[in-house]
Every structure is written in structure tokens, then in C-alpha cells.
């Protein structure tokens, strides 16, 4: 028997076709992840290295074209700033609100379980529907929220409606481009995001609070600590891992979110609500520039990976 024959017979007789071997178990899932995950990702990389010359239909290999365009595209700066501002502001608000509401609802008294269940409802709504709800409520002529803000004097009815209003409290000049930080339209979008996803934070924080041991709090109470001291010295440190995981999961989701901006402001006015994923969407489906769109999408992916890896290293959590 030759060496090859031995190898073949060993291959056939080993247990990879039996249920004791992991391969048959993993095969269907792996196939799905390769065909619909890896292959499109490689295709996206291939697209980013090609371009369609003017007046032609065939793509030509030009690896630097899109990757240099990224660095000189003024929209990219706006999109980059907007994406980070959107993620940071929405995440911070959701965290603060979520933790506060969780503390409020964290009790075993009767009726509170109903309140907690009601709080989870927004989580299962299509974000496109949430976007529509806020589009209606922020409408300048008959929106209930807009009218409320007029009555409070926060907004001026003579100004353009919130979602079409690009005026901003701050601005920043980057590489010769002036970028508005947090325009009104962006605040409207963030409002919808915060409304829908604060319940996520409430839910996770409640789970965290429930898992805390009772003894340290009893000891602190005997030592005469007030509730604020207990919150800062005991609750927060013991909850840090839970908080970090919640921030990570939500952060990634907000960073790549398209639905609210697409429905509520269509990335406008101007570039006021243009973010990286919405920019990629726009390039592909309103302009048909698939190559550049893929490049932007890949930049988004790289930034998500870099930011979350850094976050995971600093806070020592895993996704």
C-alpha cells in the first residue's frame, strides 16, 4: 500500500462524517456565512479597487482611485464628523436615561413588572415606523411635538421645521471644511433613536442591577452612607462591565444605522445629517456609483472594528 493510499483510507475511515466530528454540524452555518458574508465582503473590496470610466460600462482596475478620493472628498469629512457626533450623543443620552429609568423601576413592588414590560415595547418596532412617528410629530405645521416646542418657546414657528433646519449650536473647521456640529435636524433624528433604544439600556441595566449582591449595600447602610454615595461607590463600579457591554452593542448599532436618517431627513438639509452608512447608501442607490459606495462602506466597517476593538481593550469586555 502506498503512502497516498494510506492517507486516503485514513481520510475515509476517520470520523469526519459522523456526528462526533464538528464538521457536519458546522457545515450549513458556514456555507451561509461564506456565500452571504465572506463572498460579498470580498466583492466589496474588489469593487473598491475598480472604477467605471466616464461613458463606459466596463469596470477597470484602478486601486488608488476610490481610496484617494475618500481623503479629498469634502462630504466625507461631514459624514465622518456627523457619524461620531450622532453615535456619541445618542449613546450618552440613552445611557443616562436608561440607567436613571432602570433605577426608578428596580423594585419588587406590585405593578412595576407591568411598567417594565411596557418599557420594552419600542424595541420591537421597525425603526422605519419609529422614524415615521417622529416625522409626523415634528412636522412644522401639524406636529404635536413641534407645537409643544413652539409653546415652550424652544422653537420659533417662523424658522424652518426641525428636520429641515441645518442651523447648529457649534461648528468646527477641519481641513478647510466647516462642519456644523449637531444641527437641529440631527437632534430630531437623535430624538427618534433615543426614544426607541433607551428601553434597551433600561432592560440591560435592570438585569445588571438585579444581579448585584445585597451585602455591600447593607454594610454601607449600617456605616451611614447615603444613597448617592452608595450609587457612586458601589452601584457604578459593580455595574461597569454591564454598562460597557451595553455601550458596545448599542454603539455599533448606532454607528451603522441608516433607517432614521433615510426616512426622516434623507441626509439633509445639505449634509447636516449625512453619516457614513447613509452616504454609502446614497452613492449606490441614488447615484449608482457602486465602487465608491463600497469604499465608503468598507471605511465604515474599518472604523467600527477599530473603535470597538479599542473600546474592548480599554474596558476589558468582549462582545
Amino acid at each position, binding site marked *: 500500500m502506498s503512502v497516498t493510499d494510506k492517507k486516503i483510507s485514513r481520510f475515509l475511515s476517520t470520523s469526519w462524517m459522523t*456526528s*462526533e*466530528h464538528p464538521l*457536519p*454540524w*458546522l457545515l*450549513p*452555518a458556514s456555507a*451561509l456565512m461564506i456565500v*452571504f*458574508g465572506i463572498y*460579498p*465582503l470580498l466583492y466589496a473590496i474588489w*469593487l473598491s479597487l475598480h472604477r467605471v470610466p466616464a461613458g463606459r460600462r466596463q469596470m477597470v482596475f484602478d486601486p488608488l482611485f476610490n481610496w484617494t478620493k475618500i481623503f479629498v472628498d469634502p462630504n466625507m469629512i461631514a459624514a465622518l464628523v456627523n457619524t461620531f457626533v450622532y453615535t456619541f450623543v445618542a449613546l450618552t443620552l440613552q445611557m443616562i436615561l436608561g440607567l436613571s429609568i432602570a433605577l*426608578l423601576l428596580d*423594585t419588587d*413592588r406590585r405593578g*412595576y413588572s407591568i*411598567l417594565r*414590560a411596557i*418599557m*420594552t*415595547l419600542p*424595541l*420591537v418596532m*421597525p*425603526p*422605519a415606523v419609529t422614524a*415615521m*412617528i417622529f*416625522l*409626523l410629530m415634528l412636522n412644522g*405645521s*401639524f406636529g404635536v411635538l413641534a407645537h409643544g416646542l413652539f409653546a415652550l418657546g424652544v422653537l420659533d414657528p417662523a424658522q424652518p421645521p426641525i428636520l429641515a433646519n441645518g442651523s447648529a449650536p457649534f461648528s468646527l473647521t477641519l481641513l478647510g471644511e466647516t462642519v456644523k456640529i449637531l444641527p437641529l435636524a440631527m437632534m430630531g433624528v437623535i430624538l427618534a433613536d433615543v426614544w426607541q433604544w*433607551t428601553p434597551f439600556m433600561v*432592560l*440591560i441595566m435592570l438585569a*445588571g442591577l*438585579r444581579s448585584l449582591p445585597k451585602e455591600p449595600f447593607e454594610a454601607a447602610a449600617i456605616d451611614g452612607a447615603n444613597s448617592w454615595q452608595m450609587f457612586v461607590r458601589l452601584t457604578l463600579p459593580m455595574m461597569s462591565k*454591564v454598562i460597557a*457591554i451595553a455601550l458596545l*452593542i448599542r454603539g*455599533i448599532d448606532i454607528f*451603522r444605522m*441608516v*433607517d432614521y436618517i*433615510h*426616512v426622516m431627513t434623507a441626509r439633509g438639509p445639505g449634509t447636516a445629517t449625512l453619516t457614513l*452608512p447613509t452616504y*454609502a*447608501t446614497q452613492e*449606490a*442607490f441614488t447615484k449608482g456609483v*457602486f465602487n465608491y*459606495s*463600497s469604499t465608503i*462602506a468598507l471605511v*465604515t*466597517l474599518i472604523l467600527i472594528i477599530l473603535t470597538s476593538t479599542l473600546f474592548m481593550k480599554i474596558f476589558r469586555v468582549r*462582545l
Partner: protein
Amino acid sequence: MQSRSSIFIRDTFAIAVVLLFMFPLFWWSLTSIKPDYAIFDKDGINWVNFEPTFDNYRVTVFGQSRLSEVEEKGFSVGNAGAGSYDSRQSLFDSIIIALGATLISVGVAVFASYALSRIPFRGRVSYLNWVLGQRFMPPVAIVVPLVLIYRDFGMRDVNNIFLGYLGLILIYALMNLPIVLLLMKSFFDDIPKDVDEAAMIDGATQWQAFWRIVLPMVKGGVAACAVLCFVFAWTEFLISLMLTTDIRTVPVKISTFVTSTGNEWGFISALGMAGVIPGFIFIILVQRHLVRGLTLGSLKE
């Protein structure tokens, strides 16, 4: 230690906060039963000063044509656009696609997660990282190539409803895979390995131990995964918007009611309500596993 008045203040405050949070939903459901004159009230916000009507639901969910509405009442509900507001097809499509995606991702992931939980092999950690890595992927990064891939394979807008369904179902199944896989793994990890080992000492194969003994023990977990999958596929917007124009799932259908001559808020809110009710029912059913599901099994309640 807490006094009666401080308990009262807390209760009131808690109820007020939750009610305030639910206001958008209340307003949305109120809008869905308003006639147009109450929605577009130029005099201010119309809270209760209208005749409640189910016309918006009749047109969007039950497919009554607006023409027959005009003949019956002498006036038209809705004011803009010639597009079709009958959304029965969208509801049907959404249900088929969400069910299909749920079936495939749960069906595929249950096996993989069992192996990842029970069978030690080299590269197990790398495999888990690969699965987790999917979570970083912005949907737009795979949709753009997939549009081209589907076009090349003749799967995009070919007036073949089955191919259209399949195209969306497979992508949703993939997007759901990390959630189901990691969540199922955490449910399998909860069951001691002794259970399988005892079965295998009695002569069962790994497959029999899985199918006959362990899988029935995690029924609740499978149900929770299925619900999360269904909700995800039901609420997804970007992929179905970009990938196909033949099939409009409910979220995409709603966005088509925004017309250049005005938004049909009555119809939008009625279909919107129809689009959120299934999720509400399901989420109440799996409250217990919600935290674990949303954190991919890394936190347990």
C-alpha cells in the same frame, strides 16, 4: 425605612415617566383612527375633536379601494398620490419572509451552536470570533455587492416571487445567524455535559444525544431565538429597500406613502400599527429571555 409619601412620589414618578415614554405610540394609534381633517388640522393640535374612523385600516390592511369609499360616502379618504395603498400583499410578503428567515437561521444555527458548545476542536475560538465578526458588518457593505451578485445570477427583479422571497430570506437568515448561534450556545452551555455523556455511555451517538435529549431541554431557548429572528426580519428596512423593487416588506411599503404631494399620515399610521402589533405580542411572550437575547447571550437575567 422608606416613608409612605416617598413611595407614593416614586410610584407617581415611575408611572409618569413610562406614560411619557409611551406618548409617541399613543399619538400614533390616535392618528390611525383620525379622519384626515383631524390629522391636518390647521387650527392647532386636534386631540379629541373628531369622529373616530377605521377607514385608514380598511384601505391599507383590508384592501378596500378608495374609489368604493368615494362612492359610498361621497368623499375620498386620503388626498394624495395615485399609488396603491392596499398593503395586504406587503403584509403577506413580510410574514413569508420573516417566517422563512426564522426557519433557516434557527435551523442552521441550532446544529452549529450545539457543536460549538459540546465538541472540542481546534479553531473553536476562531470560529466563534468569525461569527461575532458579522456583528461589525454595516448592512450597506454587503447589500451593494449582493445587488450586483443577484443581478449577475438573475435573481434580482425577475418577476419570480419565489426567487425574490428566497433572496431576502437567505440574507436575513445570515444577518440573524450570529444572534441565534451565540444565544443558542449560551442555552446549550447551561445544560451540564453529563447529560450527553450519560446518554452516550448508554450507547447513543452524539446526534441521538442531541436530537432526543438535549434539544428538547432547550425548547424555550429555541422559541426565544425564533422570536428575535422574526422581529429582526420583520423590522428590517435597508436591505429590502435596496435589494428588490418587486417585493415591498411592510417598513418599505410605509415609506412609499410619503409622496411629493403630501404624506398620507392616516394610511401610514394605520399600516404602522399593523406593523408593530405582531412584535408587541411576541415580545411579551419572551420577556424572560429578552436580556440574554439582546446581548447575544453575554448577560443573563
